[in-house]
């Protein structure tokens, strides 16, 4: 379980997170949603120790982030974070060099499935291809948690379908996934929990199946209600 407790964060004098608390269990897909600039990405970066927080606590299975945690929790930023001159092969090598939990067989499998050329360079890839490689670098790791920032934004429909199919495959089985998106509609049947943010604050959080069972509402219905009031 990834647990945020009253997390506060500023950029200069601007408050970007004002007391965010939620829990993302293992074995579930949790979605952080909200309009752009409400702090979704900042939350993921804070969990990953890529930016400091100014209050509250973040724990992973009960303990704070440590550099060894990076083998249990992987982050997929919205852009592939590899140097432009590196080849696909170079990227795979970098990962297997540094991560003991790297799974080379799965990497090879996914390279084929996504039709990536080993000699293609990061800098000259299409957005869709870069998004797939970005995802591959996380999926080929045997990690407990996977954090994904806007996995569906700015890519073509075909790549989007391929990426969505990952969420219904064994690749996420037994893992805790946190993803951010401002477009819930296409993927709402894939989600377990939704955390809605507005201006660095949580406006509502719920389990999707519970709200369908109890209130007969879809996730989009709930979002509409919250943002229209």
């Amino acid at each position, binding site marked *: 379980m990834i647990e945020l407790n009253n997390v506060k964060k500023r950029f*200069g004098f601007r408050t970007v997170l004002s007391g965010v608390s939620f829990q993302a269990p293992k074995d579930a897909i949790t979605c952080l949603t909200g309009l752009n600039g409400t702090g979704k990405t900042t939350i993921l*970066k804070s969990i*990953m*120790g*890529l*930016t*400091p927080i100014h209050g509250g606590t973040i724990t992973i299975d009960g303990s704070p982030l440590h*550099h*060894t*945690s*990076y*083998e249990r929790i*992987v*982050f997929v*930023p919205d*852009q*592939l*974070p*590899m*140097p*432009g001159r590196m080849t696909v092969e170079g990227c795979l090598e*970098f990962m297997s*060099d*540094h*991560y*003991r939990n790297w799974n080379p067989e799965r990497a090879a499998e996914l390279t084929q499935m996504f039709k990536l050329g080993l000699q293609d360079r*990061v*800098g000259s890839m299409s957005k869709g291809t*870069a998004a797939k490689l970005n995802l591959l670098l996380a999926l080929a790791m045997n990690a407990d948690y996977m954090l994904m920032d806007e996995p569906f934004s700015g890519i073509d429909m075909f790549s989007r379908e391929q990426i969505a199919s990952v969420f219904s495959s064994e690749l996420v089985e037994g893992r805790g996934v946190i993803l951010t998106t401002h477009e819930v509609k296409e993927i709402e049947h894939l989600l377990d929990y939704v955390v809605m943010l507005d201006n660095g604050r949580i406006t509502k959080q719920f389990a999707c199946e519970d709200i369908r069972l109890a209130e007969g509402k879809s996730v989009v219905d709930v979002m509409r209600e919250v943002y229209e009031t």
Partner: protein
Amino acid sequence: MMTFWKLLNLEVKRLVIPFVIMAIMVAAVQMYGAHAMARHTENEAKEIMAREKLATVQQLEELHGLASYADVIRINQSPWIILPIGLCIAFLLFYLFFVWYRDFIGKHSFMSRLLMVPASRHHIYFAKLFAPLLVIFALLAVQLLVLPVENRYYNSLLPDEMRVEYPLNYLISAIPFLRKLIPLSAEQFAFNYGMGIAAVIVLYTGVLLERSFRLLGLFGAIVYAVAAVYIATIPLGLGDHWFFYEKARLLAGIISVIGALSLWLSLYLLKRKITV
């Protein structure tokens, strides 16, 4: 430890092409310089012998002495030698910033990936510190190899009787700029490069301050750098009642303290404050 070697390897690989270009440039420009110097020496000798109606080179030697390679580069403060080295220094200064900013800026910022390597972030820092240092020392080695070759090439272009051989240290001593880069005493060498490394560490601290606190950090970095330079130069302003070696030791001590403090601050920023 493996992480460090792998990261260092990665950083060095990214510097291989600039290094090769710099090495070739230094060698080519300096060899061309040696060629130009030899032509110049020969022409001058001919001119003098014609003007003064000298029959042999031996007479020329007795009256004026012969111009060795060390002599000509000293008299001309050969720009063929100084310019390429200057260009290398300018590039390396730029690279000391670039080694960090290249991984932060642009569409694919590699820094987040580096920060998430499951090992201490110290390794990232030291890889980025040692890679440029390795290149600097490799370039010094290239320079030390090329100088005698230039000397031999210069002599080979002259008639036998005009050749004068001097050892390497004469060549280095001929140009003060070169002497600063390649001090001939081990003590001086350690002092110069120790000071250089401390300066790089202070500069890196500035970069990391800016990367952690952005605009506010930039102001902090400038104040920090100015303060470091000010404190480091205090011993130079001390009066005459201090012996030179006392001042030197004090300077070395202060620079070590500044370097150590900056190193600690850098590692702290990288671990706790950095934002990608």
